[in-house]
């Protein structure tokens, strides 16, 4: 037996991304880098109006332009004319009416992007402008006529729980406004479609979060059997929810089928702002009732989520919002009313945090108001109300997940505060940054808290299972799955699982495509749990078969075998054999589907076990504020996150730091400005993302309490980091200036005027 083992990147190590070097060097092929022989380019004509009737579309001049091969409109869609994740209400191309600025009307395929541009300019569309429904409140009730056959209210859900007659000794109330955030992934929408020679099918390389869902929706619109649409994951440059919905998939495939040539489509940055759904802007009212000591006895709340023109996932976002009203706190009674509505604003759907971000911004504002009302501090009030495993939610669902809320708050509180701002602080480090607008004496520091609970996996009876196949041959493992790698690191984690379960070193991932069962979406913090569970299950089945094989060869009951490092050992004897040797000359292949436990729908009172599991996190923000100019510098974020089990520390830290940057963006700068249905800032010049000078120091503790429900003991870690950091930063701004602020992002004028 060799004494020195080669280091194997098993679970628990900071195994590096297989595509990391290529990405850093610029060698990685994103979908937009793909190219095919004889390829055409596709482009989309979009509505300049938020609400208008289409009188006519004239493509006759455009089709005559040399190099233009094909122009398609709604009339050319061979199958279903609409698509949608939950309800099919969004047209592939607008036919009679456009309902938001940027809605697709036609697509062209031509020999060059410039030819496409000219063709689009040559298409004439005659519109009759219609009144614009831009205020979400107007969508409720009869104030405005229906702008869609499905009506203006996408979904309403109430929650009535516990003794609703109870009144608190202390009552605090607040109205909160959350702005429209963009996912702002760096790799814009892109796809390349290659038609089959017989014209009866198509292969599509696409940057997406869920290959099989795209396939299903494309099949319906293209009127082809799903298996005739073979999807392959192209290199994805970030997602954050914006790639759950169909964008250019149907258009690209249809252009390829119509021209019998490969077609590539790719949005520019401006088009991308119109090409995907955004985070729902929302207004939230909450009234907390508490005992004189500060224990919550009842919460009343009302939510209005602006879903924009089409439903997307608005109904699920609403459920996440209302069911997270209480936050990570005990609450015996609640009366909640929530709406997701349709307007002529840009469609909104999934974004990291999915409805919980909006709820959290409100409930954390409320916790600080409560602390102030009873004369205690933000930490004490949160510890006093902290949720524990076994508590019952306002939906009646018991919290079975590990729920170390009090510990998260304590551990975050133990992280040392940053040093005070020194008298000779570098000007660049003050609020205002490189604009050098302030001196040390102008700056005030504040501290704020945010704590959150987030459901993970899909809810309300949905079986979002995942499939994986493991093939072992000659000591090498190949893993096959359809799990979208959007940067979260599943291609790093999956081989780690195989190395741990099977004792191999050599483990690689096969092409990610639809040639295997669905993996569900890379969203809802679910892939480590779901696809991790599928890979783990497939590897375990292979291990059983390997043990049987070696047992038969050596006359040992396979039940006695275990994997120890890279060997199979007889736990009741002396026999041992390396996995490489044991699998020489054989091939074992197994497929496994991982399902989470079943969930239920909510009843009309919002009662039901609708969620699978929960993850928690605490954030403490320290900010420097220039109260006179209203400028902010986030100095430090301290955080303790409930992660279950750490499977890759570097990956977890990446999610924590990235999520915090995204939550910071929503706190102080990121907002799509929409005026009467028109987007005013569809560019990175005016939609501001945090830069290095805006990013805070992050001090993170990963709190490991093994989650028994999870296949690997690990909870999803993707969404929590961005949820409660936003209210923590806003609370810190309030603390610094002693003024109430009820909206995010906080604008300079909200602070100083």
């Amino acid at each position, binding site marked *: 037996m060799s004494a020195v083992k080669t280091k194997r990147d098993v679970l628990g190590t900071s195994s590096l991304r297989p595509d990391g070097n290529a990405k850093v060097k610029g060698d990685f092929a994103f979908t937009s880098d793909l190219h095919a022989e004889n390829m055409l380019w596709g482009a989309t004509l979009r509505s300049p109006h938020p609400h208008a009737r289409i009188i006519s579309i004239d493509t006759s001049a455009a089709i005559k332009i040399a190099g233009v091969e094909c122009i398609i409109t709604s009339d050319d869609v061979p199958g279903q004319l609409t698509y949608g994740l939950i309800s099919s209400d969004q047209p592939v191309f607008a036919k009679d009416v456009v309902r938001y600025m940027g809605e697709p009307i036609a697509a062209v395929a031509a020999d060059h992007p410039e030819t496409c*541009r000219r063709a689009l300019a040559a298409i004439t569309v005659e519109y009759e402008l219609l009144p614009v429904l831009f205020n979400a409140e107007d969508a409720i009730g009869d104030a405005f006529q229906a702008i869609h056959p499905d009506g203006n209210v996408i979904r309403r859900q109430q929650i009535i729980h516990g003794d609703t007659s109870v009144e608190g000794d202390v009552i605090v109330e607040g109205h909160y406004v959350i702005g429209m955030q963009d996912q702002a992934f760096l790799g814009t929408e892109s796809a390349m479609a290659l038609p089959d020679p017989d014209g009866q099918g198509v292969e599509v390389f696409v940057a997406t979060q869920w290959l099989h869902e795209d396939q299903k929706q494309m099949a319906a619109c293209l009127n082809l059997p799903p298996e005739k649409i073979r999807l392959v994951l192209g290199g994805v440059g970030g997602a954050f929810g914006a790639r759950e919905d169909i964008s250019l998939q149907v258009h690209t495939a249809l252009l390829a089928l119509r021209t019998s040539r490969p077609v590539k489509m790719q949005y*520019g940055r*401006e088009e991308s702002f119109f090409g995907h759904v955004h985070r729902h802007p929302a207004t939230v009212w909450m009234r907390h009732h508490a005992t004189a000591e500060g224990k919550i006895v009842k919460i009343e709340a009302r939510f209005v989520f602006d879903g924009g023109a089409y439903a997307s996932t608005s109904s699920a976002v609403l459920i996440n919002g209302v069911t997270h009203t209480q936050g990570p706190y005990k609450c015996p009674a609640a009366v909640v009313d929530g709406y997701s509505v349709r307007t002529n604003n840009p469609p909104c759907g999934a974004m990291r945090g999915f409805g919980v971000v909006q709820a959290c911004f409100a409930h954390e504002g409320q916790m600080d108001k409560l602390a102030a009302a009873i004369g205690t501090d933000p930490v004490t009030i949160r510890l006093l109300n902290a949720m524990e495993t076994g508590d019952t939610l306002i939906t009646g669902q018991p919290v079975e997940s590990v729920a170390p809320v009090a510990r998260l708050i304590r551990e975050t509180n133990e992280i040392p505060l940053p040093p005070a701002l020194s008298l000779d602080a570098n000007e*660049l480090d003050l*609020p*205002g*940054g*490189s*604009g*050098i*607008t*302030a*001196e040390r004496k*102008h700056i005030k520091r504040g501290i704020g808290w945010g704590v959150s609970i987030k459901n993970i996996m899909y809810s309300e009876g949905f079986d979002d299972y995942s499939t994986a196949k493991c093939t072992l041959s000659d000591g090498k493992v190949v893993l096959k799955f359809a799990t979208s790698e959007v940067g979260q690191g599943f291609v790093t984690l999956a081989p780690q699982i195989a190395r741990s379960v099977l004792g191999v070193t050599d483990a690689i991932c096969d092409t990610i495509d639809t040639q295997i069962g669905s993996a569900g979406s890379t969203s809802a913090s679910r892939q480590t749990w779901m696809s991790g569970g599928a890979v783990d299950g497939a590897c375990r089945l292979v291990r059983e078969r390997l043990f049987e094989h070696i047992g038969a060869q050596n006359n040992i009951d396979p039940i006695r075998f275990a994997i120890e490092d890279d060997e199979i050992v007889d736990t009741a004897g002396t026999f041992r054999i390396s996995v490489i040797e044991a699998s020489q000359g054989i091939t074992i292949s197994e497929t496994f589907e991982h399902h989470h436990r079943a969930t239920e729908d909510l009843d009309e009172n919002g009662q039901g076990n609708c969620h699978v599991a929960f993850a928690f996190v605490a954030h403490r923000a320290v900010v420097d504020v220039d109260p*006179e*100019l*209203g*400028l902010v*510098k986030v100095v430090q974020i301290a955080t303790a996150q409930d992660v279950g089990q750490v499977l890759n520390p570097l990956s977890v830290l990446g999610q924590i730091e990235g999520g915090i940057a995204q939550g910071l963006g929503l706190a*102080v*700068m990121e907002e799509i*400005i929409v*005026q009467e249905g028109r987007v*005013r*800032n569809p560019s990175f*010049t*005016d939609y*501001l993302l*945090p*830069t*290095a*000078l*805006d990013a805070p120091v992050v001090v993170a503790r990963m709190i490991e309490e093994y989650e028994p429900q999870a296949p690997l003991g690990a909870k999803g870690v993707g969404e929590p980091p961005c949820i409660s950091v936003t209210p923590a930063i806003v609370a810190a701004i309030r603390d610094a200036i002693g003024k109430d602020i009820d909206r995010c992002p906080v*604008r*300079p*004028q909200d602070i*100083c*005027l």
Partner: protein
Amino acid sequence: MSVLIPHSILEASEILAQHPAATILNGGTDLMVEVNFNHRRPDSIVLLRNIAELRDWSTDAASGTITIGAGLPYAAIEKGEIARLVPALAQAARTVGSPQIRAAGTMGGNLGTCSPAGDTLPVLSALEAIVHLQSIEGARSVPFADFMVGPKRNSRQPNEVITAVTLPITEQRQGYSKVGVRNAMVISVASACFAIVNDTPRFAMGSVGPTILRAREAEAYLASAASNLNDITEEIAHEFGRIAASESRPIDDHRSTATYRKHAIGVLATRLALKGI
């Protein structure tokens, strides 16, 4: 599309005489954005980047001035000797974009674009810089106030190259500040340059009017209210800020509100007047 690459200012002005419709390209950090958005579709381009003279700078002891070539990138202005001689210009240069933008972008381009948000422009206004232009017909020197005539409009003739800018070297206080909603790489929502030249206060404001505005009343107030410009009371500085704000003419847009811009200009004026005392 043709790209013409002159190697001297003379050659550039000859090319422009032959191709009056040609578009000048220096760092490209404004122009290429316009081209990408299809806002401009130049037929021919005159690239200035290979003209070494445009990147020269020199001082003139007799007149107490510094002349900086229009093609010198911000990276060379924000630090080093130029930064010591004209600190406000260096501060303005440092706030432009990111390191990548400052490696390519130039004052010539800032002047060519002439946006009210251009970061070096308030400095040129406060220091009453002279803009030098050259065409086949000869050289021309224009005070900045006559150069910028409107939002994104200047008095450059199509056949002229902006060659350099001359600024006074003063030993007195000067500073530049810019308010943006992000701590770096942001278009200003209000910017200001305060400078004392020959014992006279000057205050220029960016992003709060169609052009860079000089706060003449505020300047006059400060000159009369403070007997010593290095000993200004808080009270006087606040009044100075109040007057400057009242002289600004900002608008509401998607970047900010007129009310905030006015307020911010006042704060900047007060702070800059007191800074370094």
